[in-house]
């Protein structure tokens, strides 16, 4: 019980330290927002064209508000699924700063377990990333509402659940990788690397359907890909339902499949379609594996087998 109180206090302290640095919060928030602006400015027309092309093949025209809305929703699914991971890497800075400023030594001489300290970094990073992602989602939803809102409360709830799964994955991954980093330069380098690569390798910036089959199969082994797939489903379903209302009922399923295949709401692994349940299973399974690795690292550090030394006081 006492250890729980210590954990709660450390989580509050880590979170407060993060939000007291306005620049840090602003930088975490601005990156996904820049992505949104870039997407809307440079790529929106390409994807609008792709949706129109599919509709034309089925002999229908998509109503402008639905077309703008589905494009915006698809862009938001990309941004949120990527940012859930990249923001987690940027926001884990308190853990690295504690090592850099030797604050960790103050915790080391206090009667708390290393496990408690490590878990506190994980929980506070989860909270911080969640808050940033919710802010991005809110801004993104204002944009979607302006161009064409068709999402239900249920959709938004499921999108939030998807964000939570993505953030859990990102926070665990960041916690593991960044536990080996001791400098500001190190965390910046890792964050930059993850930010620039992750969007491509999980198929968020470009639909996987546009990649070669071999590459699609390779990317199918990465759990992040399914995190994007889940989000795509919950953002696009309402719009797809709206679009197929306009088509001959006999072609409705085929058209829905064409849109979902073309924009990664349907994912395939070695030619077999992966169900939504399986996507959740893979993502949460990956979280379970990462959690086991995180616990192992904490255990090894606790036993001082894997000494990650901080700067000398």
């Amino acid at each position, binding site marked *: 019980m006492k250890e729980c109180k210590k954990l709660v*206090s*450390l989580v509050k302290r880590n979170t407060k330290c993060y939000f*007291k640095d306005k620049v840090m919060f602003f930088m975490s928030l601005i990156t996904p927002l820049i992505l949104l602006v870039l997407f809307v400015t440079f790529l929106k027309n390409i994807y609008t064209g792709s949706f129109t092309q599919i509709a034309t093949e089925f002999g229908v025209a998509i109503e402008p508000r639905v077309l703008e809305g589905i494009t915006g929703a698809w862009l938001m699914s990309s941004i949120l699924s990527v940012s859930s991971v990249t923001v987690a890497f940027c926001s884990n800075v308190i853990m690295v700063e504690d090592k850099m400023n030797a*604050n960790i030594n*103050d915790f080391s*001489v*206090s*009667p708390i377990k290393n496990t408690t300290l490590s878990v506190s970094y994980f929980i506070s990073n989860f909270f911080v990333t969640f808050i940033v992602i919710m802010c991005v989602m809110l801004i993104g939803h204002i944009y979607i509402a302006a161009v064409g809102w068709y999402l239900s409360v249920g959709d938004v709830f499921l999108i939030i659940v998807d964000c939570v799964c993505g953030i859990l994955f990102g926070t665990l991954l960041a916690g593991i990788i960044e536990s080996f980093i001791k400098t500001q330069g190190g965390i910046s380098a890792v964050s930059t690397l993850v930010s620039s690569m992750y969007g491509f390798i999980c198929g968020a910036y470009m639909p996987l359907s546009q990649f070669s089959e071999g590459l699609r199969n390779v990317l199918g082994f990465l759990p992040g890909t399914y995190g994007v797939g889940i989000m795509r489903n919950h953002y696009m379903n309402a719009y797809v339902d709206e679009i197929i209302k306009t088509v001959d009922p006999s072609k409705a399923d085929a058209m829905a499949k064409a849109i979902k295949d073309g924009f990664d709401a349907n994912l395939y692994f070695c030619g077999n379609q992966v169900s939504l349940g399986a996507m959740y299973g893979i993502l949460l399974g990956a979280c379970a594996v990462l959690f086991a690795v995180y616990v192992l690292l904490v255990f090894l550090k606790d036993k*001082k087998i894997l000494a990650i030394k901080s700067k000398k*006081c």
Partner: protein
Amino acid sequence: MIIDIENLEKSFKEVKAVDNISFKVKEGELFSFLGVNGAGKSTTINIISGILNKDNGKISVCGYDTDSHIHKIKRNIGIVFQNSVLDKKLTVLDNLKYRAALYGITGSAFKSALDETVEMFDLKEILKRPLHKLSGGQKRRIDIARALIHKPRLLILDEPTTGLDPKTRINMWNIVEKLRKENGLTVFLTTHYMEEASESDYVVIIDSGKIVAEGSPHNLKNKFASDFIKFYNHREAAQKYFSTQGYRFKNERDFTEIELSGTEEVSKFFKEKPELFDDFEVLKGNMDNVFLKVTGKDLHGG
């Protein structure tokens, strides 16, 4: 004994940072641990407080073995590090609150501990100010307040006054002295200021990981430090006389200073050449001389 160290050893790869040292610290005393940078002081402190593991030896702190009861030891010690390890963006209150919680001090227990701390360290005016907006002296006060908020039996001060102005240094020592007198607090000090070490009950000097001298400041001065006579009159005569005897001298603007091995020599020359001694001053060697003699190194030069 509040600290009992026997045959402590610690190496970093090829470098032996602490080489088979043993010493004891009595409850309630001011204990000084002196050495140049890299002598092994911080390594020893880090082992005592559980930051580092030792290679060999036995350490007991507050009656507990570091191998089996490090958490009980941590509850009984407070450390002021060389550099502040508090959160600069947070307020003084937040820093104290979150650090006290690490010792299980929350709610009403924290409120009462905070009231005592605020009064003792005069923190009322700065309690809600972020740490980065405080002066160096104020920050040091908070560091000490943090180290004492859980009422430890042993306070470890790792070069606590380095970089502080003289007034802040005096204030800090007044607080520590008050705590020693009123609460029987034991203080384990490492410092570069020999006048601070002179006030200690016991001093251990460490060099290249080994203890090279230990004892009370008085005994160490008697054993290792020279005495000095300053002649304000008859300077040329004194200089001539002592140089023929093979003594070193130093000419300053107002006096000539002769270095003698100890008080006995001063008495001897006073009896032999009383005519030289009509305006003079005898100075006992200080801890700087002791340190220089036993290590061959100047503490301030590193």
